[in-house]
């Protein structure tokens, strides 16, 4: 199940672009995938340009404008309970989400892929041990586990990444293992064994590249989940330390106002977070759709 689908020789489309770029552009074949990609791209651009485009310093208290001010011409999304500009905080906040979520996902993948490959390729007791460890981790309530880890090791970006890696890697390992179990039976793997290739070569060069289709789809989804996780940790107060603009933290800080009916302060970060997650989900669906088509 390759993600990219370049037509065979003599096809109607001639590739002028480099292979990887034309494969990424294939997402255009799927309408929901395109929407997802655009949403994600939007947030990536926002994150990249925040230092220049954000109207205010995200941590500056604009007391002359007032606390919990409604949206206006100067503050498009209003100000929060400490009179900080919400638009600027959201723009800066996207930098945090879009740094930590991919990093955490990549780390979770690195660990998960190694475990899954080893378990699926070598089978036997190795497989049993790895899978039982995964089962134990997976059987814990995820949220409780996050809170325990964060409280135990203290809130920081590094610890969020470590926690996400710890919890995501068993799930990735299962996926990689099931792919490996299927791919290890292919003739090209047998051919590699028959020319005496070592195990690491077969796993990394012969098997892993062919498992990339489902892994990319799952990676997009997981990126979204991680963004939610970071938000939830922020909301529970075990995320990043204030005053850094963290979307989840922004919602928590306005909690008391939320009960009083002033929802605009919570609404903006909530929409930002969910749009990013929806963007990743749609992108995942799109990638799946394109890879299934031929």
């Amino acid at each position, binding site marked *: 199940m*390759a993600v990219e689908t370049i037509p*065979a020789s003599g096809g109607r489309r001639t590739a002028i672009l480099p292979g990887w770029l034309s494969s990424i552009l294939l997402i255009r074949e799927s309408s929901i995938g395109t929407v997802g990609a655009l949403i994600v791209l939007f947030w990536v651009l926002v994150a990249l340009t925040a230092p220049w485009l954000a109207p205010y310093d995200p941590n500056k208290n604009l007391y002359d404008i007032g606390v919990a001010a409604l949206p206006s011409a100067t503050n498009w999304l209003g100000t929060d309970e400490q009179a900080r500009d919400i638009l600027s905080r959201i723009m800066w906040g996207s930098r945090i989400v879009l740094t930590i979520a991919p990093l955490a996902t990549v780390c979770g993948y690195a660990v998960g892929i190694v475990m899954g490959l080893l378990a699926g390729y070598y089978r036997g007791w190795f497989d049993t041990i790895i899978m039982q460890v995964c089962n134990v981790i997976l059987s814990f309530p995820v949220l409780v586990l996050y809170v325990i880890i964060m409280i135990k090791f203290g809130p920081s970006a590094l610890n969020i990444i470590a926690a996400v890696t710890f919890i995501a890697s068993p799930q990735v390992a299962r996926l990689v293992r099931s792919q490996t179990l299927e791919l290890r039976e292919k003739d*090209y793997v047998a051919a590699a064994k028959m*020319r*005496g290739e070592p195990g690491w070569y077969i796993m990394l060069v012969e098997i892993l590249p062919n498992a990339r289709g489902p892994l990319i789809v799952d990676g997009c989804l997981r990126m979204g989940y991680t963004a939610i996780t970071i938000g939830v940790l922020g909301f529970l107060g075990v995320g990043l330390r204030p005053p850094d603009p963290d979307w989840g933290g922004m919602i928590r800080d306005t909690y008391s106002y939320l009960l009083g009916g002033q929802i605009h302060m919570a609404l903006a970060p909530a929409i930002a977070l969910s749009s990013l997650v929806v963007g990743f989900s749609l992108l995942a669906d799109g990638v799946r759709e394109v890879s299934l*088509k031929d």
Partner: protein
Amino acid sequence: MTKGIADVSGPQPVLECRNLHISYYTRSSEVPAVTGFNLKLMPGEAHGIVGESGCGKSTVAFAIMNYLGKNGAIVGGEILFEGRDIAKMSQDELRRIRGSKIAMVYQEPMSSLNPAMRIGRQLAEVPVYHENVSWEEAYNRSEAMLANVRLPDPKRIMDAYPHQISGGQQQRAVIAMALLSNPKLLLLDEPTTALDVTVEAGIVDLIKEISKKFGTSMIYISHNLGLIAETCDRITVMYSGQAVEVGKIRDVFAHMHHPYTRGLFSSIPLPGADKNARPLISIPGQLPLPYARPPGCTFGPRCSGFQAGRCDKPGLEMQAIANVPGHFARCVRLNEIDWEAAAKTHKPRAPIEPGPVVLRVADMQKHYTIEKMGVFFSKDVRKIKANEQITFEAREAETVAIVGESGCGKSTFAKVLMGLEQATAGTIHLGNLELGQVPVGDRDAGTIAKLQMVFQNPFETLNPSHSVGGQIARVLKRFGTLPTAKLRRDRVNELLDIVKLPRDFAKRLPRQLSGGQKQRIGIARAFAGNPKLVVADEPVSALDVSVQAAVTELLMDIQRTNRTTMLFISHDLSVVRYLADRVVVMYLGRIMEQGTTEEIFSPPYHPYTEALLSAVPIADVRVHKRKVVLSGELPSALNPPKGCPFSTRCPYVIKGTCDTIPPPVRLFGNGHAIACHLEAQQLTSMLPVITMRESEAKPKSAGAAPADASASVASGGAAPSRATGISTTPGAANVAAIAKLPPVPQPPHMNGTPVPANLRKPLPLTDAERARLALERLQANDASSSTEQAQQALDALKNQS
């Protein structure tokens, strides 16, 4: 012209396709899948559609069911079923027709049956749904139908889930389901492709019987010309979405007119083809892509008789063949091309002289143990005997075929040889090296390079993620003979030249290659390190017929130049007869018979070899096959029969001996060995399975040519021609012939006397023995067709005594 096909007045045709056009819609464009297709199917007639993958044959079948899916549509013409256009019917009408008047049998029986429902219920649903009968009656009918498709113990099958019965039984159940509502039309889409040869023979037999018994019209879709020849009355040959030749089986097979049909026939190993004297001729080029078909004749660019200005003129119609009613071909140069001259240009090759022994396998044994942890730590240990007493040799430049059906242990043997598994006992010597116990990781690069493999599935043999050139270069790097990247690149180019692919293919990814091209790369990879021995595991069975020939020839060419020994693993006896020097026949992990190709294909046979030979479909109407249909299914390797593994299906089984004692190996000299309890003279007296009818005109009764017939029998198959093992008996029905044998001088009774080791000539038989043999053979045959002959045989015997 096309309107004239089968223009007979009389009964209304069951199905008629008139100028049918079918297209699929893809992301970018409309792809015409079938263009201008005509077909007329009369009641009780069986029509075969043959063609390679992508020619549109399955599309026609789906169109007849009006089940083309979302992206397919009939864009022109009509399909008349009993006079009404299927395309104009409502969904409701279609639902009523599908399954009751038109039924379809697909390739994969397992995916046609609901795995969560008992067979009985699935079958009974058909009459309940279509005819509103009570469940009880539906069950009764279903059970009767299961008996009709000759499933043993229908009661048990009714209660079974699909996974509990074998593939052959599943396909019979599917056919029973299709027949339950007594359909007018049965569509069979490659119904036996997923099955083993001997099981296939049983299904083919059943299909033939169906049209006789139920008067069902059939459309039989297959890529296998031999199967079509055995089952159908008429044939349509399709190429690139068009019918290119239509006619009666006899007419088309004996005198094909379209260059493509001719190409197909010369690329399959028919009896008489010989790798040295009469090599296969492949069709050059490739099937055009559906959106890039050439104008005029779609076969033009691949045709040796192509004439610019005529063949590429659009609007090519079917042309009637003079003096042969109902035979048409889509070729403007129908009567002009001199095929005899074209055939003569092929140069015969000199036979290869095999060198010293390269591979010596002695008493090799491979057992797998399966451990099941039970409750309370009780261990249930079971053994699978995948290979038992495998003993044979292969010499330099020789091709040794290992033949057998699935589960016979041929792949296990390959794994042990390649070092992926270790032998449980016995030895494998490659030159002086003992390899049976040495896993591939412990073999040095030189040894590994000497021993390579060509795989079966072109879609799995290459890693889809890496470029073709990179994969070959990796092999070269691994073997360490070429130290620099430059040298390796040169060698990759050289190898691409050898397998006749353009050099810029090195940069391509496998998915940019066709199946045949991938298989060529697979061959290049195997021969990269100049191996001494190459194991070819069904290297062409997944390819299209015209590509098969090219790849087979390529493989043999390289083998010839490098003097490589080849172990050719296959289930296809036609290919084996064509290219093998020696044959090893395996069944359930044991060698049943081995010898030179000539010896295997002519008597004496092992009973299993005899059945295999009879099961292989042959696309030649002149060939007469003695029918040996095996009953039953392949036993499970977990629980093989105690004595001879074949005893559960053997028509000659001696109760009390075959099923308890492992068979002795009987030697017939020159390395020809048969493992069987039957006495040597009984094996020798077997009749040849495949006989060639010299001329159709000669009388068929044995009485007319008793002398010839008896001569052929007495000499154990009248001078088999080299490497083909086909004896030529002039039109004699062999069964009757044996009964009419003149009395011969009787030797002392042979039972108990030691058999001479080199028994090349069969011993004469007593009358009683001959009669018993004749009857046995008849019993092994299909009862319905041969009771008459049996009676004749008996009468003839009485007359003589």
